[in-house]
């Protein structure tokens, strides 16, 4: 299989900010390769370094160590105005003394394109983001959502090789945000430009991206498709940050090839659960007595009645709360070690007799639903 061509790449990039005696490491030996025509997202909490990395691509931060490559060429020494990379800024940074059309035309004018071409491109961009009727308005006279679209058009007009988007939707209200997410996805596939998108909203990342890089503390924790990241988180942080996860601490009680038995701390002595591991897991660590953390998604588990006839493996706990959500119901189960385990079941599955609060219930999940995380 031919490896996909790389559009932009960071190799061992470290960025340290120093002010007097204080030093802050924003990026710690970050390496990442983003493919052509990809919708790539940098996802992480604030302060994780995602914006710094984006700015390093744009040319606003210079790496203390390492290199930035565009189509294989080192561009770290190039100032921003010499890089064929454009940015959609978080606060849009539209030029207030210019019209919508003037803003969109700016990059083309700086590139020295002929007037006719500029006009044609501006027209095309205005149509693309549906801002034709506003073309002669000053950017200070349009709404936030419209400003966002102008910022997008302005960055796309010069046909950059890569488009960087720095949390562009964070200022929009919920409904508008959802609309723009679909818009952006459409634009990316239509124009074929590589998009690098920065956000702290994991839902946004999951819905829009071809691939996601989860970042924390200046490092990249995991890179993969939304499905990979969600179903197979590599670390506790990733599992916790993306969606909701239940964590069960426990000890390996038996190993049989690809099936291991784990005794959760909360299960009480003797009760163990069967876990199926995939070949990725480090064989060396699969030993009896090894402590592990299991990560189980709420929707991959079920609540069952506890009774003498039930022989499915389960962990028992106290049903603290039942929360009804319309489309599904959350069951909050308090385990014997005090931790809370949340089970999510769609309301299409009727649970026979309804359960009552403070009932003792059992939690069950399939062997391949749990993911092993190493402490």
């Amino acid at each position, binding site marked *: 299989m031919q490896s996909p061509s790389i559009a932009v790449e960071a*190799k*061992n990039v470290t960025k340290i900010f120093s002010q007097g005696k204080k030093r802050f490491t924003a990026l710690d030996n970050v390496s990442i390769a983003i493919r052509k025509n990809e919708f790539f997202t940098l996802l992480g909490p604030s302060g994780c370094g995602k914006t710094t990395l984006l700015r390093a691509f744009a040319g606003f931060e*210079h790496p203390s*160590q*390492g*290199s930035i490559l565009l189509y294989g060429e*080192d561009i770290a020494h*190039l*100032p921003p105005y010499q890089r064929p990379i454009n940015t959609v800024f978080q606060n849009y940074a539209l030029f207030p003394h210019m019209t919508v059309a003037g803003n969109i035309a700016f990059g083309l004018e700086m590139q020295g394109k002929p007037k006719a071409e500029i006009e044609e491109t501006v027209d095309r961009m205005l149509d693309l983001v549906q801002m034709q009727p506003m073309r002669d308005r000053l950017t200070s006279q349009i709404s936030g959502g419209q400003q966002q679209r102008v910022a997008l058009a302005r960055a796309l007009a010069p046909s950059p090789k890569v488009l960087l988007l720095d949390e562009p939707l964070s200022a929009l209200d919920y409904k508008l945000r959802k609309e723009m997410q679909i818009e952006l996805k459409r634009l990316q596939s239509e124009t074929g430009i590589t998009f690098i998108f920065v956000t702290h909203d994991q839902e946004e990342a999951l819905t829009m991206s071809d691939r996601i890089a989860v970042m924390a503390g200046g490092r990249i924790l995991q890179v993969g498709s939304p499905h990979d990241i969600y179903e197979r988180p590599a670390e506790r942080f990733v599992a916790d940050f993306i969606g909701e996860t239940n964590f069960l601490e426990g000890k390996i009680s038996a190993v049989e090839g690809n099936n291991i038995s784990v005794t959760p701390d909360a299960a009480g002595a003797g009760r163990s659960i069967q876990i199926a591991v995939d070949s990725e897991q480090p064989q060396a660590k699969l030993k009896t007595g090894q402590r592990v953390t299991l990560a189980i998604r709420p929707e991959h588990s079920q609540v069952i009645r506890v009774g003498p006839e039930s022989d499915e493996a389960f962990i028992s706990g106290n049903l603290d709360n039942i929360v009804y959500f319309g489309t599904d119901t959350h069951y909050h189960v308090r385990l014997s070690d005090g931790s809370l385990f949340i089970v999510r079941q769609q309301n299409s599955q009727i649970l026979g007799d309804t359960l009552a609060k403070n009932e003792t219930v059992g939690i069950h999940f399939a062997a391949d639903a749990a993911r092993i995380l190493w402490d």
Partner: protein
Amino acid sequence: MTTKTDATNTTNTLPAYQKREALNRWLLSLPALSIIMLAAIGPLLIMLMYSFMVKGDYGGVKLWEFSFDGWMNVFLQRDIFDDTLGFADAHLTIFWRSLKLSILTTLTALAFGFPTAYFIATRPKHTREIWVFLITIPFWANLLIRTFAIQEVIRNEGIINNTLLAVGIIDSPIQMLYTDGAILFGMVYVYLPLMVLPLYASMEKLDFRLVEAGYDLYATRWKVLKRIILPMVKPGMIAGCILVFIPSLGAYVTPRLLGGGKNMMLGNLIESQFGAGRNWPLGSAISITLMLVVMFALLFYVRNVTRSGAGHG
């Protein structure tokens, strides 16, 4: 600047375009810095040198002949008969008058300026700017014009005396012009807007809900003023006092026009040394002294502002 792309830990040097930034900043500041050095700071240093030289016979100095006489004569003088050193009474009187008048000016300006600033700050929002505008208009009249206007008002044939005579309170005009009081009146008049504006700036930010809370907790108006309003407008008060004190200490035109040559302040004393007094080293020394006092007052202000946590404007 090329960077190594292997995996070993090599630190990148700054790209050329960022290195140029520091140089650019110096080049940009150069015109302003050099003009001020040339025509403001440089001459001060030369004046400092002059204060240590021997005075020339017809003014100026005997270049490169050094002496401490200039500085000594600031506070001391040699008796011409028995050659003993005594205090230069005339100078000390002037020092004292300048200090006294400056402090009085500041306090009077505060007394009138505080209610005025408060009044403007409590007007409804849309009229406030007009009041501020009104208080600054007199300030934009030339210093000479304002001082002359005061002169006209307080002279023996001026409107104050005429009104008092007409009403019958006095029989003959009161001599107001060419007194210390006239100078005080003039300086307050000239520098009042400098007190009002910073006070107003502080008061405008006053959160009147805190004042309401004070009243709610049984405070009287006086107590509210003393313990709630005053502490909160302190930065404005200090700024206003400094803005009035410093120029009044170095006032020249106002005491000249309103003091008439008899009631000299430091500015006039300095001028006379460069004019009829023909004692340039002495004039230089007094100027430097005045400058140091002013710098000291400024330092005090800066310390106070940074201590109270308020940022600079």
